[in-house]
């Protein structure tokens, strides 16, 4: 059997050789790795016909740090802090994915206090991630102001988290068997104050961007992906939910305290950029609902049940569990040989899978549409490259 292995050069050349039906000449243009709207170091090779995108070839690896390979040499507790550096906007949820897999595999019990704290901080983080996503979408659409409004409100959440956790971005908070610190005495009060502050601000967000007819024109019926394609493309999170698939792990396979709180899954109807945008807005509302239900009755108990210095091994076998982060399903797959370090660790990251759907949505649109699609996917590049 002989399998042909291609190269990027060959790919672009063969792509250009496909005869186009238009009379104009098609050309390639490099979008990234340094481009304002690729949100980091994503490189897209675009085949354009004038302004119309014919093909998108993503080129990855500009920020690959071999987290999986490093994980093979790290203890399970050390892996947790590596996950901060994947999707840095849902760092706590990434920590939780590892902690949950390890807890499930090593049969570590947690108490309700731990799960409540985890749920609350994760939802706070989801809100701030979506705030940033909202602002960045505005910026990509040419409105710079929302970006700073989003950052302003996000800053307050990072302040609240900083007071409890001691870090603003790379949290390393959720540990196997608990959380690293107990919540700060001011935490509950500040979260409540924040929710009271942010609710009117969210309506303001809507007035500023959602209500703007220009933005609606830019997002509606752009980058449409139906449910079948979205599932086949492996999209998860808001991207999949916008295509009218209510696949939200918080509802489908409840973990933490999600089984005990009331909230609704935000879905879209057509699967276009507008739906993806609005699903995030609606998720902020639902996250606030979740926090409101939990914040007043965090049960008493210990916050860390397993000593951080104690040996932590996982029984031999294959272990997988997944978490709904702000961008989709983060799965952590461990192949263990019963040692302190995994034999193989694999992260099923949401952005890596969501990015692929770009290649299905972008062709046929304009360059401006492509920018809209990228920002509606809300990509975090280090999560793609790991």
């Amino acid at each position, binding site marked *: 059997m002989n399998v042909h292995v*291609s190269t990027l050069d060959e790919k672009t050349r063969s792509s250009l050789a496909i005869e186009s039906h238009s009379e104009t000449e098609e050309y390639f243009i490099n979008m990234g790795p340094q481009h304002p709207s690729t949100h980091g170091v994503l490189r897209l090779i675009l085949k354009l016909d004038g302004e119309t995108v014919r093909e998108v070839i993503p080129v990855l*690896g500009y920020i690959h740090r071999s987290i999986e390979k490093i994980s093979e040499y790290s203890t399970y507790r050390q892996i947790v802090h590596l996950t901060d550096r994947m999707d840095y906007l849902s760092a706590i949820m990434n920590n939780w994915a590892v902690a949950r897999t390890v807890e499930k595999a090593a049969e570590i019990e947690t108490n309700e206090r731990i799960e409540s704290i985890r749920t609350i901080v994760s939802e706070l983080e989801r809100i701030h991630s979506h705030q940033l996503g909202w602002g960045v979408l505005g910026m990509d659409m040419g409105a710079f102001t929302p970006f700073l409004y989003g950052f302003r409100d996000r800053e307050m959440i990072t302040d609240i988290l900083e007071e409890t956790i001691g870090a603003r971005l790379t949290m390393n908070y959720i540990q196997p068997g608990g959380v690293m610190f107990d919540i700060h005495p001011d935490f509950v009060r500040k979260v409540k104050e924040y929710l009271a502050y942010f609710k009117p601000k969210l309506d303001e967000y809507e007035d500023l961007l959602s209500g703007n007819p220009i933005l609606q024109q830019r997002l509606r019926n752009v980058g449409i992906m139906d449910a079948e394609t979205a599932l*086949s*493309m*492996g999209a998860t999170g808001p991207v999949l939910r916008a295509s009218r698939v209510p696949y939200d792990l918080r509802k*489908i*396979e409840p973990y933490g305290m999600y089984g005990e709180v009331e909230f609704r899954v935000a879905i879209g109807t057509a699967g276009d950029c507008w739906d993806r945008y609005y699903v995030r807005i609606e998720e902020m509302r639902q996250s606030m609902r979740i926090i409101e239900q939990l914040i007043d009755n965090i049960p008493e108990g210990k916050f860390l049940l397993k000593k951080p210095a104690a040996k932590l091994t996982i029984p031999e*076998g*294959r272990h997988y569990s997944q978490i709904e982060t702000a961008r989709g399903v983060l799965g952590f*797959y461990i192949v263990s040989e019963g040692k302190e370090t995994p034999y193989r660790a694999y992260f099923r990251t949401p952005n890596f899978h969501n990015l692929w759907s770009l290649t299905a949505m972008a062709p046929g649109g304009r360059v401006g549409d492509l920018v809209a699609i990228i920002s509606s996917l809300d990509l975090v590049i280090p999560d793609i490259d790991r």
Partner: protein
Amino acid sequence: MESEELFQYIASLEAAARPSEKPSDLPTIEVPPEHFLSLMQQLREDPRLYFNMLQVHTAVDWVKKGIFELLYQLYSTKDRQSLRVLVELPRENPVIASVCSIWRIAEWQEREVYDFFGVLYEGHPDLRRLFLEDDWKGFPMRKDYEDDFMLEPGQ
């Protein structure tokens, strides 16, 4: 579906597929590479199973046993069923059929596995490295991979 029932049903579809005895936390089946593609096709298209999401595809390098263990984790939105499919390939000349035509995300995942493990996918429309440069030597996630910049474990 209970896992026993699931295994029986899958066995009725493809006789070569058998429940895995390897320790695993999800219903797991193993299939030899030559029956792999037809099994996957049926898993996707069979109206009772309808696994329409390929959630995870990755490989594990069992260097001592001389095999690659390929993992396909499927999910069905029809009845929220998960299934793990394991395929073992020899480390020398690891070739397997591509499932790109069944799940489009496989195109992406298979390129990653090729990039890091060197598993070749037959029928993949655009098999090339995903993260690394085209002229990279070797496959870094293999356990016996070495290059000049690597630190010894523990250093």
